[in-house]
């Protein structure tokens, strides 16, 4: 289904929200309000938004260590996200999880995950549940090029293919695992799409910075999954703008011009969507500025919400080890 201008503007809004959210998260991290580690998704927004745009309520996704984008795209609440980053009681995990562990099971977001490839089998289990439920639910596993080298994606593609599970495996190939280029550690010069053949499932490689390409590939894969025809592997080629993590003094060994090249307007997924909408007369500069102000306001509110939320009491550490 071609994307109408309203849908596209909503998608743009979500992409911009991801970017602004992370700009703020990174600033607040360096300001000492957010702790531990923050992995930014900036530059890759079209993937989460394009894929989640093909899903409906009740569908489930799982994320990686680089989770904010997937959370926001699946409809998570900015206030509770920011409160979690701030380590507060009203955060999604009551301050127990932080950036690497935000989840919203009500929205079908089964969590970020600190372990590379650690979530793939979990969401494959959600796909099995969807199949057993028989209501046409679909699951999505996001994972990185780095994760493609680990066993779980293969075990899961095999079982999902053999059992025709309704799942889409979305590889966000940003060409690096931390400092290591995929071309040095991943066969076929870092191309992952070819793995699909081993399991007899469709494999699609797309420009992950093109929201149209992402959404189209996702729609097709989702339709297939809902129809009971099994999994699809999508390799979305992209690039991360920021360093692997926000840690201070963290070096970034990627070539400077490579980084800058990916930030250019003809490759930036947001700039590309803005240009498209403007070209077709569906967006003006002023409208985009207004949208951005809205986004920034929402993020400002989320920070205020987070600031107001109390830190958990020390003894809260003893709760939630087990469910009742």
């Amino acid at each position: 289904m071609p994307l109408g201008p309203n849908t596209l503007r909503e998608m743009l809004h979500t992409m911009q929200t991801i970017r602004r959210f992370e700009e703020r998260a990174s600033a607040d991290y360096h300001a000492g309000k957010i702790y531990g580690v923050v992995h930014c998704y900036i530059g890759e927004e079209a993937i989460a938004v394009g894929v989640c745009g093909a899903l409906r309520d009740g569908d489930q996704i799982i994320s990686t260590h680089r989770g904010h984008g997937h959370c926001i795209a699946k409809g998570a609440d900015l206030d509770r996200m920011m409160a979690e980053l701030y380590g507060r009681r009203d955060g999604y995990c009551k301050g127990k999880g932080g950036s690497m562990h935000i989840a919203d099971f009500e929205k079908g977001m089964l969590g970020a995950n600190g372990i590379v490839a650690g979530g793939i089998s979990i969401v494959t289990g959600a796909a099995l549940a969807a199949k057993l439920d028989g209501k046409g639910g679909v699951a999505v596993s996001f994972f990185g090029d780095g994760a493609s080298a680990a066993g779980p994606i293969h075990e899961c593609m095999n079982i999902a293919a053999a059992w025709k599970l309704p799942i889409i495996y979305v590889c966000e190939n940003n060409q690096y695992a931390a400092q290591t280029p995929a071309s040095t550690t991943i066969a076929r010069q870092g191309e992952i799409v070819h793995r699909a053949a081993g399991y007899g499932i469709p494999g699609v490689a797309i420009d992950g910075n093109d929201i149209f390409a992402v959404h189209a590939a996702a729609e097709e894969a989702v339709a297939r999954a809902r129809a009971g025809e099994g999994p699809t592997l999508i390799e979305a080629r992209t690039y991360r703008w920021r360093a692997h993590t926000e840690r201070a003094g963290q070096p970034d060994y990627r070539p400077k011009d490579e980084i800058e090249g990916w930030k250019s307007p003809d490759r930036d997924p947001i700039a590309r969507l803005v240009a498209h909408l403007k070209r077709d007369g569906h967006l003006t500069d002023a409208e985009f500025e207004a949208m951005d102000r809205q986004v920034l306001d929402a993020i400002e509110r989320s920070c205020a919400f987070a600031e107001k939320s109390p830190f958990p009491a020390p003894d809260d550490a003893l709760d939630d080890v087990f469910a009742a």
Partner: protein
Amino acid sequence: MREITYAQAGLEAIQEEMRRDPKVFYMCTDAIPPLAKEFGTERMRATPIAESTMTGMAIGAAGSGYRPICDWRQVTFCFVAMDQIVNQAAKITYMFGGQQKFPILYRAGVGGGGRLAAQHSQSPYSMFMNMSGLKIILPSTPRDLKGLLKSAIRDNNPVISFEGNRLLQTKGAVPDAEADELIPLGKAEVKREGNDITVVALAWAVHEALAAAEMLAKEGISVEVIDPRTIAPLDAETIKASVMKTGRLLVADEAGPVCGASAEIATLVSEDPATFRKLKAPVKRVCALFVPIPYSPGLEDHVFPNRTKIADGIRAVMAA
């Protein structure tokens, strides 16, 4: 009451719970024939040899409203799934601030005696006790196994059931289906009362300890045998109450001693001022020798504890 085997008791627990609750389903690298027959391949799912994925899928299915049972068969095979156990199953409830429940039963055989050599003769339960977030049962009788498995399936958390390989064909009285007997997680049982020494024994070692107690009764030593049944959480109260009475503690376990359940039990007693003050003798562990388990029968038998070694240990504590 009927007498059935440990293996049969385990199967009955699963069957009864699968009948009771359609959300319960079973995964194993081979189908279990009676389950396949009764529940079909949708609910008795024969999986590829991918224990890591089975283990993770159980988490995802549990978070989506099911109550999966994931049978690793031998504990040995679950080490390929250790990330899913340690980093996911054990922590997911907590990390996510308790927003979702993860009712999962993991099953695994433990223990040696089968001449299966180092990889297939392991009893590493304390590795799992070491992390918080898991409940762990280690039943020694058919009745305990059945009642604990049924409780485990109804629990809203990941529970691991470690089941003694040496116990599979042992028989015992078990209430039938109508009784629907649930044995609560976290409650030890005094398997034999006595006054002179407390022997806390695990799984197969319970039977060896009872045999040793029988022998020693003739020598005038009155042995109390406690079976924790659940090892996470441990029922420290029952153990400590016994030591308050006897003033002596021996732990008998088929596993090795180092950082074992035996070390934990010994420490519970020696760190509590009340029980410590009552101790008339040093605590003692009678465990496997600290080596990988060898294949040849004479070697294997030498490595494992048994009733004779337990009896010797008790005598040593009595004499200390």
